[in-house]
Every structure is written in C-alpha cells, then in structure tokens.
C-alpha cells in the first residue's frame, strides 16, 4: 500500500529504503488500473497517435480525390464524412490530447519535482473519458447513415436534425461531450499539480517554460471547453427535444452557435499551440547549450497570447456580417506581438549557441519556419478586407494547416524524439529521425504552398470536385504528392520505433545534457519518479547540478551578474561561432 509519499532528502539515492516496492500489475491489468501519471501519459500518447495515423490516412484519401478535377469517384457523402472526421480526429482527438493529456501528463509532474499528478484517479478517469469519446466518434462510421458529415465545426443549422439526421451526428456531439469533460479534468489536475506539488525552491519563476505553458493552457481549457460542452448540449436538445435555440423557425439564433463554438474554437487553437511552443522552448536551449533567452518575456508572451486568444473568436465569423469587425480585427492583429516576442526569444536562445542539430532540434527549426509562414498568413487574414476575399477558400485551409501542422506535428514530434529516451530508456535512431524530418519537411511545403495559390485563384474549401480548365489540377496534384511524402515520413517514424524496440540502444538518464528535473530521474523513471532531487536554484536544476563550475547565472539573481545571462553556457570563452554536428 502506498498511501503516503515522502519527499526524499537531497542526495539520498544510496539509501533507497524510502522507495516503495510494489507488486506492479502488468499488461492489461496495468493499463486498466494504473493511476501513475507516466503510464496514463503514455496511454494518452499511444491513443492520440492511433488517431493521428487514422486521420492522416483519411487526409490521403481526400487528397487522392482532389488530385484531378473529377476525382476518383468518391461519393459526396463519403467525402464529407472523411473531411469532417479528418478535422475532428486531428483537432479534438490528436492535437490536444497528445499535448495536455500525453506530454504534459508525463512531463509536468517530473519538471516540478512531484511524485505524481495531484489527483491520480481523476487523471485515470480523464483518460477513460478521452478513450471512450474517441471510440464514440469513430462509431459513426459503423452506423447505417455514416459518420458526421458537417465539418469539424458542425455549424447549425447544417448540424440540426433536418439537415444531418442519423446517429453519426449524435455520436459526434456526444463524443465532444466526453472528451470535453476529459480535457476539463486534466486542466484542473494540471493547475493543482503546478500550484501545490512543486519541490522546494521550484518557485513559479523557476518553472520550466513547458510547465508554464501547460499552466496557461490549463486555464484556457477551463475557460473554453465548458462553452463547447454547452454548445453541444444545446445542439443535442435542438435535435432531439424540440428546442429552437439555433433554429430561426422557433425564434432561435443560428449565429449563436457560431459565437459559442468559436469562443471555444479560437482559444482551442492556442490550447493546441501553446503546449507545443513549450516543447520547442524546452528543446532549443538544450541543443543550443544555453539557458533560454528572455525567460520572463516568454512567460508574459504566453500569458498575453492566451489572454488575447479569448478575445478574437469572431474573426472566424467576419463574413457573417453580425460581428464587430474593428474589435476582433484589432485583437487578432495584436496576437502577432507576443508571438513575435517568442520568435525573438527562440532565435535569441540559438544565437551564438553551440547548436547541435540532433533530430529534436531539427524538428524545432522546422517548427519555427512552418509556424512563421502560418502565422504571417494569419496576420493577413486578421484584416477583414483580405478575409472577405479569401474566406472559405484554400488560402484559409493552407493557413490553418500550416499553423497546426507546424505546431502540433513539427514541435509535437520534436517532443516525442526528445522525451522518448526518458520514457523508455532507449534512443531513437538519429539517422532515421532525420530522414523522417526531411521527408516531412519537403512534403509539408509541397502540400500547402500550392494551396495558398489555389485559394488566391478562388478554389473553395470542402469541394470534392472542381471544373477542369481553371489550371487547378496541376497545383492540386502537387499538393497530393506532398501529402504522400508526409505519409511516407510517418512510415519512417514507425520503422524508427520498431528499430528502437528490437535493437534497443540504452539512453542513460540524461542523453541530451538536459535542463529540467525530468532528466534527473532514471530512464524510465521509477514509480513516483524521484529517488533524489538536486537543489533547485534556477529554472534548469539538472544542468546546474551536472555543471557546478559553469558561470551561468539564472535570471533574477543579482543585477551585477545579469550580463552573463544568455552569454552561452559553455561558449562563454568568446569564440561565439555556432558549431554543428549535423
């Protein structure tokens, strides 16, 4: 029985009498009963990756249909179902849960020096809601009328019973109900863990940026997801109980649905993005051999992005004609400022660092480029005149795919490559990782750059066929080829996982010379994580412990020493040239 967890004193690992020995359950029993945040985190990640591959497969089918003007004869209903489920799986079941369910669950308690999440059983419950919600959504394919086919946003009145009859749509609604509660519980859990389970000396201003971002994300979840749940409940009552909340016929307001949905939907974009910003901010300093540049600036930028993101929901609704254009345009444009601060800090962290382009770092650089492109087109779209011209065209499709692919896939898989050694105690093959990266990187640009052009030529979204003779076919074919390159790159990743499983290369506890407390634990970490903890005197305690002679000074410790901040941990000798071993 492990009722009480005692925090071990520093340097106590030679006397491990405090480490409880469990009759650990294995396999199915472990999967069903574990309340260990590490097991649950891996459960989340595996489930999310299954959803990612499923959804990616659907995207390839869509791209095959679009590769020529008349397509391959896919029925319109099938096409609608596939793009709806592609978007829903990616946004609700992969991108979010992979970050705040998977990575955060695993990493946040370790980064703050806690033995587990604050509410381990609630954590397990969140996972079961997420898994059952995912199954619920996919069940739609097994019904006679097919899965939901109204787009991932499910606008009323299209999603009402008149236009979307059948259980597929209901399953979609119920699925968001389940996963929404899952997200809220995880949010509560993360906030409580970060507020109450930090190790002594781990002040809020020493939290790793990933943990800061997860805290802000958790608050955003608590603001946004209940609104989505409310919107879904209203939608369900409109469909089944005869209410008229969204129907004009009964005195309702269809635009209310859009207001509710986007009040969730835009913060959701940052619920998806902020954790991955945090991942990049963990990785870039480690592979630049420097402390993160502008720590507090990054924290305030994160908070500003989150705050602004809740005031921009109606920029998805400019063309409805019912929203206050200057307010939403202004706030949307303002988001570029804290995002720019982040870019400045990421580049400042790399500047004059000793950069080593291992796979996680490569993915992070790819993330910077991809997100820059997506972000800049976002600034364009924040301006109503441009939005009116490009609304519901492939320009918007390319924009949000670049933003979300850039963050959730580039930075997300950077995180996977970065923390995989910690989770399983074995390395992923660096050469295969780089092959994954370059295939994906080329495929990424080949997929989405043509879509910008297509959008400017006026190709609308959500069409299964298009007229020949408009010059769209070759651009669409290029996009399809790019999509298949992305698909190929993820097969390479599967090979990489298989190789590491069959021929394990031991990782050791700290293969990257990492900064956060998670690198102080063993790989994989023991039950309740830590046998000992280092003294925590900066935001990178493990690095301090391993480099006692380094001349770096954490921020906020004596104004006289501040000029050393960011001077380069090992590169302070003045050479200043970045060296690469790529």
């Amino acid at each position, binding site marked *: 029985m492990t009722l009480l967890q005692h925090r071990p*004193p520093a340097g106590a690992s030679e006397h491990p009498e405090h480490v409880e020995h469990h009759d650990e359950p294995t396999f199915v029993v472990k999967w*069903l009963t574990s309340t260990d945040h590490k097991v649950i985190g891996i459960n989340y990640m595996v489930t999310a990756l299954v959803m990612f591959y499923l959804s990616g497969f659907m995207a390839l089918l869509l791209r095959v249909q679009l590769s020529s003007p008349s397509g391959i004869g896919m029925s319109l209903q099938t096409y609608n179902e596939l793009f709806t489920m592609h978007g829903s799986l990616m946004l609700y079941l992969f991108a979010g849960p992979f970050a705040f369910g998977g990575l955060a669950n695993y990493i946040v308690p370790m980064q703050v020096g806690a033995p587990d999440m604050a509410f381990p059983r609630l954590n397990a419950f969140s996972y079961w809601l997420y898994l059952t919600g995912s199954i619920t959504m996919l069940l739609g394919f097994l019904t006679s009328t097919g899965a939901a086919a109204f787009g991932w946003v499910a606008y009323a009145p299209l999603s009402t019973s008149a236009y979307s009859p059948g259980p597929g749509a209901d399953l979609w609604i*119920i699925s968001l109900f389940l996963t929404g509660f899952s997200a809220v519980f995880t949010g509560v859990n993360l906030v409580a863990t970060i507020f109450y389970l930090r190790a002594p*000396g781990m002040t809020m201003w020493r939290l790793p940026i990933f943990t800061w971002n997860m805290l802000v994300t958790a608050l955003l979840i608590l603001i946004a997801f209940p609104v989505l749940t409310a919107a879904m409940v209203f939608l369900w009552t409109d469909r089944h109980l005869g209410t008229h909340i969204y129907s004009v016929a009964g005195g309702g307001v269809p635009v209310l649905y859009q207001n509710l949905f986007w009040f969730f939907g835009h913060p959701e974009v940052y619920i998806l993005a902020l954790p991955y910003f945090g991942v990049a901010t963990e990785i870039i300093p480690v592979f630049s051999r420097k402390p993160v540049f502008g720590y507090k600036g990054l924290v305030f930028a994160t908070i500003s992005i989150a705050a602004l993101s809740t005031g921009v929901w109606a920029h998805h609704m400019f063309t409805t004609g019912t929203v206050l254009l200057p307010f939403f345009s202004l706030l949307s444009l303002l988001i570029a400022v804290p995002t720019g601060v982040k870019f400045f800090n990421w580049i400042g962290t790399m500047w004059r660092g000793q950069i080593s382009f291992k796979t996680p770092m490569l993915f992070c650089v790819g993330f910077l480029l991809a997100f820059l492109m997506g972000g800049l087109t976002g600034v364009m779209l924040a301006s109503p005149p441009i939005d009116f011209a490009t609304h519901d065209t492939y320009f918007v499709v390319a924009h949000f795919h670049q933003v979300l692919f850039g963050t959730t896939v580039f930075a997300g898989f950077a995180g996977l490559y970065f923390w995989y050694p910690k989770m399983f105690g074995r390395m992923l093959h660096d050469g295969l990782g780089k092959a994954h990266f370059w295939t994906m990187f080329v495929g990424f640009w080949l997929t989405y750059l043509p879509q910008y052009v297509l959008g400017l030529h006026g190709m609308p979204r959500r069409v299964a066929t298009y007229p020949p003779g408009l010059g769209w076919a070759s651009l669409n074919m290029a996009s399809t080829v790019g999509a298949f390159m992305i698909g190929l790159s993820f097969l390479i990743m599967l090979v990489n996982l298989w190789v590491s499983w069959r021929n394990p290369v031991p990782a050791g506890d700290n293969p990257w010379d990492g900064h956060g407390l998670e690198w102080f634990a063993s790989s994989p970490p023991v039950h309740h994580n830590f046998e000992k903890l280092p003294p925590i005197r900066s935001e990178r305690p493990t690095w301090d412990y391993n480099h006692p002679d380094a001349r770096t000074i954490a921020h906020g410790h004596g104004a006289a020493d501040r000029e050393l901040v960011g001077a380069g941990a090992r590169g302070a000798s003045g050479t200043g040239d970045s060296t690469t071993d790529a």
Partner: protein
Amino acid sequence: MKIEARLLVGVALFFLVTGVGYWFWSYEQSGTVMLIGAVLLGLVPGSYYLWWSQRMTPRPEDRDDGTLAEGAGVIGAFPGSSIWPFVMGMGLFSCALAAVFGLWLLAPGFAAVFAAAIGYTVESRRGGTI
C-alpha cells in the same frame, strides 16, 4: 502562492476590462456573457488564493532559497492503482451512448457510476489497493 493568486486575479481583471469594453462597443449578448463567465472563473479561486496568500507564511516552493530538507515529509496521498476510474469511465460512456442508442443504456451506466462512487470511497478509507 502570491504569484498563483495574481495570475488568477489577473485573469478576472483582464476579462472584466475586455467584457465591459466589448459590451459597450458591440452590445452583443452572448460574447459578453461568456467573457463575464471567464471573470468569475478567475475571481472565485483567485480571490481565495489572494486572501490566503496574505495570511500564510511562504511555502518552501514559494521561496528562492527553499531547501529540500524543508520540504521533506508527507506530501500527500497517491493511490497506487485503482480499477474505479475505469469503471466510472465505462459508466459515463454507457450513459452518453444512451443519448444516441436508447435510454436503456442508462441502467448499466448508472450502475457502474454508483459502483465506482462506492468503490472510490471505500478505497480512500482503506488507502489504495496496492
């Protein structure tokens, strides 16, 4: 605890300013209601934290010079493993499916939820299963 409190009160203040500004600029109801909801989300826990942070001595994790020895001791109760989250999850799954496939699914759903609620309670009294 002061920074945590300021963060949450800051959420409330931000949405107060945005909400009031939004209302007098647009007179749009749904957005204003949601923004005011967010004020409450920050205000309720934030004011509690603020009140409490004025009255407590800073915890070791709030101080730059906190040492591990100060924090040694009992942190809390962490159940080792438990089947009840799974049972409750399946119960809620069944209840949710009842909204689509028929109300009879509420019966096994509620049974599982009640069983899990009892299981949780008993387990907490015993102190975990492992």
